């Protein structure tokens, strides 16, 4: 009988110990714990009007307001790129390097498209977040935007191509060296939002939308077409980014 009593007391003590230890280690459950990743309700999508996602980022945290994020745009073959400056296009070059304001939308020009010489495209780029490169090395580590010939041909065909550039999550990034020449884009299905997919794999930093819209002939419509000509900053000491003399800023 004493043995049975001791055994019962031991069981009670064990249960009590388990309860105490469990109550001391558990934390309050967050409501989001009951939602899977796919059940989140996205506020923004890549199909939102240009400027919507980036301007929302300006209301978020971090030093993003007024920051000119260095961006480098390259394309296949002989493709050249140019930016508007005071109502005219700068000299086109195969690698476009400039600092873009976060939240603003920049429309640039693509010429000398491989396979469609003579055709011009006017896609847009929207920088929705910034990078944090080492100090004094911002322009050496720009956001690399590499466009494909397939993108151009699809846009010329009348489709709309949305390309989301994201910064890989260092915990899940593929451990391979990525240079400017190694581009690893992947396509998403029409049922997926590219912004959501990019957000799943990392941190989206820019959205490039390519269509076949042409500049309007009426001069009064050009500011709307170019999104009111937001300010951009050419990379310093880069001869290829030199703004033509007629575009020089007046003192």
């Amino acid at each position, binding site marked *: 009988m004493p043995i049975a009593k001791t055994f019962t007391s031991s069981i009670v*003590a064990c249960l009590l110990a388990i309860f105490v230890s469990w109550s001391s280690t558990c934390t309050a459950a967050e409501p989001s714990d009951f939602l899977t990743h796919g059940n989140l309700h996205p506020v923004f999508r890549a199909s939102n009007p240009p400027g*919507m996602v980036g*301007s929302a980022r300006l209301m978020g945290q971090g030093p993003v307001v007024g920051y000119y994020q260095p961006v480098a745009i390259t394309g296949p073959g002989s493709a050249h790129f140019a930016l508007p400056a005071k109502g005219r296009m700068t000299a086109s070059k195969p690698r476009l390097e400039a600092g873009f304001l976060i939240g603003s939308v920049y429309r640039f020009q693509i010429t000398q498209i491989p396979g469609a010489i003579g055709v011009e495209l006017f896609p847009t780029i929207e920088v929705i977040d910034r990078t944090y490169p080492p100090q004094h090395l911002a322009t050496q580590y720009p956001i690399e935007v590499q466009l494909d010939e397939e993108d151009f041909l699809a846009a010329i065909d009348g489709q709309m191509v949305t390309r989301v550039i994201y910064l890989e999550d260092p915990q899940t990034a593929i451990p391979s060296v990525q240079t400017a020449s190694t581009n690893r884009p992947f396509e998403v299905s029409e049922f997926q939002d590219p912004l*959501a997919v990019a957000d799943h794999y990392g941190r989206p930093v820019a959205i490039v939308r390519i*269509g076949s819209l042409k500049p309007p*002939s*009426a001069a009064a419509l050009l500011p709307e077409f170019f999104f*009111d000509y937001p*300010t951009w900053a050419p990379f310093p000491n880069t001869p290829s980014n030199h*703004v033509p003399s007629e575009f020089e800023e007046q003192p």
Partner: protein
Amino acid sequence: MKRIVTHLSLFATTAILATGCVPVRHNLPSEQRMMEVGPGVGGPGPGVLGGPNPASAAMRGAVSVPQSLAMAASEPARGSVGDGEIGLVNFMQTAPPAAEGMAAVNATPPTLQVTFGNPDGMQVRYDATGSGGFDSEALVVPARQNFPQGGLYRIKLTSIPNREGVELYPTIELAYANPRTGAYLAHNSVPIQFTEEDFDQVLTGNFVTKVIYLPDPAFQGPALAGIDTLVSTRLDPGVDPIVEADRRGSILAIIRLGDKDVEMAGAGSDTVASMMAPRVAGLPAPYAPAMTDGCGNCQTAPMAAAPMPGVPVLQYAPHMSGTQMGGPGAGKLPLGQRGGLRKHAMRNHSAVNLP
């Protein structure tokens, strides 16, 4: 005493086993998670504090330029190797005359680019001065033309291939851009095409309605990675192409094509009396506002009526929901009577897709 010691040892052993003897660390959530609004409202993209006004997105960037000039000169210049000076392009921008000042920007209506793609060689004319005629220069298909959004336009089709002498006057109704169609309309044109079947239907006395819409992902087939068109003559009898297109996505344009000659004397043309002058010279002038809804006036809140003597002031605020249900008072359900509302349709033109 032995029993107490035994119990205490058992208690301690079980506690250590249960906790794993691992110290509990309370770390902050990841930065990505901290930037999200809260549970149930996640990405994609950066955290948000609320949906911004799409129309002011570009404006916001422009406004932030002056206060960011110092950062602009410092941040990218840090990466420079040389003198570090950086020249801002388009700063205090001046380029086209119409771009100077907010008033000029606001005076320009949002436009939509239309591509007349078929049949080749057909000529398209429109009213360019607001006079009620078709006094524009002829557009030879394929051609593009910008139209202000939210208008009803009448065009004139001439030189139709294989149909000499036939002149048709279809109307084009263009919807306003909304959060679902804004990105598409900012990068692509709306293709308007007339087929031989359309002309055959019209010339035999039928009325053709074509609805061009941007389908929702649920209605977008793998082979149709773009917009789609519904034609009334290809649908089952009784199916309204406008209703069907609105169910499948967001309407971009509605084309109505008949055989009425609006330039015939005494034809009762509707292009004379209600003609409005074009807001931008050279752009087509609408003769009526579009009936398709959009977000053209979504940003304007309902204005409260000014108090008038003898008129009681409403003690409740006017609701902004789309439904007429709820909220007593005039214009809704009369108190003490049975409600007669049997159906109310709500269309989701927001950025959030609710299939």
